[in-house]
């Protein structure tokens, strides 16, 4: 029973990260019908830059803030430099290749500069695990679902209640119409990628202390976040949150009852199966393809 509770909590925790990263994909896709394919690198930079800043003596919180801000700026810059020029025509795939290229550069440069060994990201919340029955869980892990809740509610508030958020939704709905009411759609797309970067880097900072910071930490998280977004139906934020959390929890149970190796294999097969059954995603609406 306690074991189950623990799987649930750790699953919830890792699922929250997938959900946050999935939301990042949702934000990018809504704005541009394109994404940063190597978005996981933004997640990674959130954690790695925090460690780097702390190395030079910056205290924890300012270091986190600085890292998140820097990663978000980079995410926006990637939109400007690598997505926009290759996303001029409908169904273009150029942006896919260019973001992969830039992601490869970021990841290998980080490996070269930061080292290939994972580093600890010390926070007060990973000093001592809480005891739940026989097993332990770090307070940091419990922070993640809370953060997801804050992020999801915050995103909802941003999109529904602020001028910029509404303008972004307008761009997502119809770029032409957005331009005709005076919204600079290109600028909103840039901001959206920045916003997505914010979400990604934040989740990196938050998961960093649990899994340690390394140049390669982002790849798998980014991939799972992308898969979660696709399975949910990439244009549905609530669906992304639900799918992310569910995926995290089921992962932990597979891991517990089978093995770590089986975890990804089964999780991934499940994704393919779901996509076979629900081509538009679990929560997605059938897309209307104009002829």
């Amino acid at each position, binding site marked *: 029973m306690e074991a189950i509770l623990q799987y649930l909590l750790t699953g919830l925790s890792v699922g929250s990260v997938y959900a946050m990263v999935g939301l990042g994909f949702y934000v990018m896709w809504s704005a541009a019908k394109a994404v940063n394919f190597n978005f996981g690198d933004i997640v990674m930079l959130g954690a790695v830059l925090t460690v780097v800043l702390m190395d030079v003596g910056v205290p924890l919180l300012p270091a986190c803030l600085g890292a998140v801000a820097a990663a978000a700026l980079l995410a926006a810059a990637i939109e400007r430099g690598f997505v926009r020029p290759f996303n001029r025509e409908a169904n273009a795939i150029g942006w896919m290749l260019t973001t992969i*290229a830039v992601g490869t*550069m970021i990841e290998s440069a980080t490996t070269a500069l930061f080292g290939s060994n994972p580093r600890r990201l010390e926070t007060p919340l990973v000093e001592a695990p809480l005891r739940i029955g026989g097993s332990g869980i770090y307070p940091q892990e419990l922070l993640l679902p809370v953060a997801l809740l804050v992020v999801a509610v915050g995103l909802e508030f941003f999109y529904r209640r602020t001028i910029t958020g509404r303008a972004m939704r307008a761009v997502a709905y119809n770029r032409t119409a957005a331009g005709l009411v005076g919204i600079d759609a290109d600028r909103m797309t840039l901001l959206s990628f920045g916003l997505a970067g914010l979400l990604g880097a934040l989740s990196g900072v938050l998961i960093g202390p649990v899994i340690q910071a390394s140049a390669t930490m982002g*790849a798998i998280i980014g991939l799972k976040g992308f898969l979660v977004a696709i399975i949910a139906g990439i244009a549905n934020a609530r669906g992304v949150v639900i799918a992310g959390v569910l995926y995290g929890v089921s992962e932990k149970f597979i891991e517990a009852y089978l093995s770590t190796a089986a975890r990804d294999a089964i999780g991934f097969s499940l994704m*393919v199966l779901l*996509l076979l059954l629900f081509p538009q995603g679990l929560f997605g609406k059938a*897309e209307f393809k104009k002829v």
Partner: protein
Amino acid sequence: MIARTGGWIAAALLALAIGIFPYLGDLLDTRFPTSYELRLVMRAMILGIVVIGLNILVGFAGLVSLGQAALMGLGAHAAALLALRADWPFAACLAASVLVPALMGAVLAFPTVRVRALYLTVITIAFGFVFVNVLREWVSFTGGASGLASIPRPTLFGERLMATRAAGFNYYYLIAVCLMLALWVQWALARSRYGRAMRATAESENAARALGINVTATRTLAFAISAGLAGLGGGLFANLALFVNYETFTFSASIELLLMTILGGSGTLAGPVVGTAVLFAASQALQGLQEWQTFAYGALLALVLFLMPEGIVGGLARLRAKLAGRGAQERQTGAWPHFVPGFDALTQDRDEPGQATLITRDLTLRFGGLTAVNMVDMEVRSGTVHALIGPNGAGKSSLLNVVSGFYRASAGTVTLFGQAVKDQPPHVLARLGVARSFQNTELFGRMTVLENVLVGCHIRYQATLAETLLRLPRFLREERERLAEARLLLEVVGLTDFAGEQARNLPFGHQRRLEIARALALRPKLLLLDEPAAGLTHGEIEDLVALIRGLAARGMTVILVEHHVEMIMAVSDRVTVLDHGEVIADGPPEQVQDDRAVIEAYFGHGAPAAQATVPAQ
């Protein structure tokens, strides 16, 4: 023609160079290809095979895989495990190394390519990660990090295969033969309906579907072939190294393969060989960079995409075309329609005269809250030209899209050639004999004019994939016949001189002609034309009218959505007028033209007393 013979000469030279290489030292009297260099060339050839596979996926089908290294690894492990654990002979292992990844490719592609081509890429990345993970963790089966060692040396027909002088470099030559076979497969695909279908789906999914191509199946096939070639490379690799572990087949290896494809020039036949050779040579030089090597790959990929997206071979071809273009002679545009003698044979498939080719009953189409088509009853007789008109947003194109299977009706029935066909996808309807054109001409822009028409012939091939790849008689006969048909159709629309031109370079009026020729290649019984006159000049419209009348005279049924009232009056036997998705008038053109409701729908009520100012014709 020059390009063709040039290609064969290049292939022959490549074969010669590869063939001589092991004995180069004897000719030059040096100890040049040591076993080390020989090994490098063998590895490059293996990568070449994998990259050819990737080129079929990326360059033909327009899909991207970032799990190609993992598929290669799957082939390598299939071959190694079967040899080690099941004592399978080499030939069987090699066959398995092709078939297992091909099957895996199909399983990965089928669910993903239906929605968005993009999803396949994500799934392939995931597959790559899972593959490496499983290899690493499942130590008892795969050996984990220490991998599978001491794979038995391959033997074929009792010969031990090795790349040594004593063995006559037989393994080296086996790899070389496989490379040549892969090039053959690539060439044979490119010049067949399969390759044309792949390129067509990449260029315009809608047009491909309208011509009877099953897009999901075509993409799945492309990925299966691509994965099979990756696996072949893997199987050859395992038997060369006699050792495999996961480290060779990581994500960054997949990026390297992709870079080779793009660098060489995706979609070109020589691109994979050139890209592999250049990057493989460069990577030997870049090894000093150590951890920055991957960075250099990323930077190079970005650089290629920005500066020469068509790659080395594509860039050179463009340059040559530019140079050749200067001296090129004017092309003659033929008059059209030119109903050449053989044309009647191509239009003999028709619905029986006087039959109702199309019947819709209570046909309704809703998008969300909007009803685009509302309870439409329509009947179109065979061999007639039936126009569908109405003001903007009246639902004409929507109706056409339902009839051709692109939209699924919310309610009501559609009967075509006496068969209920509701909810059938476009490619199935195309096979029944429905062809269409598109409002915004959807040509396959990067394919030649002739190839565009040949794609229209797609459904009338019977030769299987095997027959096609082996160039067996049935394929050759069919290809010859279709080619003759396609040329004939080009003659009908006056584009004979443009056969070798890329479709996107045609002037607009010619593009319309080509689209119609392509639709006719389907040998349709029912032809749907969506605003064929839009953007055409008066003279061109008159030719179009003559063509449509000519088709109807040969028994073809034509449904026409058009704004151009003058043309409708000239060409149609019957007119159905839609407004707000409903039929407001139906009858012969003269009658509809003076229908009060029609004039109001177009003009607004309180329209000038039409009958008074303009006498009825």
